[in-house]
């Protein structure tokens, strides 16, 4: 029987498949489609200290093998989340990661502090949301700010800290190194790529927010390259995200260097995506004669010359 368990830092996961932030809500709706106790983990929708309305609609534009979104971190706010959503999530029976996005460093720290007292399994510092004007991506494209923020968060919580990075930078490896120096337990890459879609007739962006974040299979080759690049730059675990649609995709990310992965847009196309992907991984391991899924991680052999 294939062993799908992996450890990200010290936390064991039943399998490497985690639902990505913003594509799974808080798990309430997805319960109708699959047994959430069987997936590796769920990453909450991105949370801000105060409730956020998010951006006006349209918030989605379809692109070739992908989509742009400009949700803009609509969420009930951190306090309401702790009271109304977290207890429900904890009961789901899988690992729970909480994705937080601050308007400024202090907001991140405030949320970290308050999460320290909960039973969440890890905190994902969203340093990469492209859909809000403040904080987030600004911090995420500056290594010094990343290191400082992660180090400060490290001081206020014992929870594992995952730094979720933006691909909209010249060197993702530099950002990952900064997160590592700051004391991050893992880096999560990638968040969405900045893009725009235009309505020719209206001569307007389709998204009311003008720009949005590109996700889906279109970005997979970029995400995979960034994981492979970062694997050579840091020694903390990498959680790979970007365009994963199948079990084979997951194993490609692991071969490139990921310890676990997050599945995002696939959930929106197929509500059973996470469960199906886990089943596919199991079948492929059988085929490949691999008994422990962790044996894939970082086994990419580069061609030389």
């Amino acid at each position, binding site marked *: 029987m294939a062993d799908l368990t992996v450890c990200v830092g010290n936390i064991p996961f039943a399998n490497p498949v985690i639902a990505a932030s913003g594509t799974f809500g808080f798990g309430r709706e997805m319960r109708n489609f699959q047994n959430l106790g069987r997936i590796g983990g769920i990453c909450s929708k991105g949370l801000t200290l105060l409730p956020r309305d998010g951006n006006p609609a349209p918030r989605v534009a379809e692109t070739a093998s992908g989509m742009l979104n400009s949700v803009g971190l609509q969420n009930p706010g951190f306090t309401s989340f702790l009271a109304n959503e977290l207890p429900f999530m904890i009961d789901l029976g899988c690992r729970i990661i909480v994705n937080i996005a601050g308007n400024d460093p202090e907001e991140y720290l405030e949320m970290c502090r308050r999460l320290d007292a909960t039973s969440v399994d890890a905190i994902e510092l969203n340093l990469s949301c492209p859909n809000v004007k403040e904080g987030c991506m600004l911090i995420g494209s500056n290594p010094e700010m990343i290191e400082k923020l992660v180090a400060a968060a490290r001081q206020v919580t014992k929870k594992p800290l995952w730094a979720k990075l933006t691909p909209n930078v010249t060197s993702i490896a530099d950002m990952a190194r900064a997160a590592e120096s700051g004391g991050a337990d893992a880096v999560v890459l990638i968040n969405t790529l900045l893009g725009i879609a235009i309505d020719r007739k209206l001569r307007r962006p389709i998204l009311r927010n003008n720009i949005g974040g590109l996700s889906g299979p279109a970005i997979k080759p970029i995400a995979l390259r960034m994981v492979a690049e970062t694997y050579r730059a840091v020694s903390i675990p990498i959680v790979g995200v970007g365009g994963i649609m199948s079990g084979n995709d997951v194993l490609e990310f692991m071969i490139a260097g990921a310890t676990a992965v997050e599945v995002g847009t696939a959930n929106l*196309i197929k509500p059973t995506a996470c469960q199906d992907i886990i089943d596919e991984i199991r079948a492929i391991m059988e085929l490949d004669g691999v008994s422990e899924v962790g044996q894939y991680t970082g086994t990419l052999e580069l061609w030389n010359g």
Partner: protein
Amino acid sequence: MRTIEFNCPIIDHESINGQTVVLTLEAPAIAQIAYPGQFVNLTSNQFLRRPIGIMNADPARGSIQLGIRIAGEGTRFLAKRKKGDILSLLGPLGRGFNLEGARRVITVGGGTGVFPLYFVQKVCQARDLEGIAVCGYRSLGDSFLTDQYKALTCQTLFASEEGDDMDFSGHAVAALDDLLAKLPLVPETRILTCGPEKMMASVAALADEYGISCQVSLEERMACGIGVCLVCACKIKRGDEQGAEYQRCCTEGPVFNAEVVEWQI
């Protein structure tokens, strides 16, 4: 309610005109529980699914019908499918129309909005409610479901914007105005509307004028259709009257009471 993914064979394909088709799909589980105003989310040859309102559900036959107008690549693909082809459907999705306590139901449809409201009238007939339908088309040549609507309802009013030989020459909203002016009012009347946002806003205003309760079926660009991605934001007035908030068209909607909708036009 439990919605899941179904692979449904097309059991009938009726071409209404070059731009519009009615597909009949074998979907027993959906047919069993669907009610008017709900929708399904369908795969096509495009990346995202496409939301389409349920036009009819026949629990006995185990089938549902969808009326589809070609608007782009995805609906073109769907319209070109043939009998026997299989489509992946998620459904039934969303909150539909509320007919509780209604005695008379006036549906006001515009364009493809005429399709999902057909399901309303079918239920009205089954429940013995007084069904009145206003259907707005661009032109006579563009009209559809007229015989079916006539067979179902107590009264129909077909409006043609181009003014060619239909019941009413002009916009569906003007037709409704005309109708309401003549119609003796009865209590427990509901106006249910589906169509272009501008039309629905005018219908809502008119309903308000006449003091009739009104429900509208909003359309918003969607991805998941099941409430997890938050892209389908509709601006809805808060209960506490303190401004508005974004609610999910696919989950809290697509049907809302007209008075809570903050129109975007």
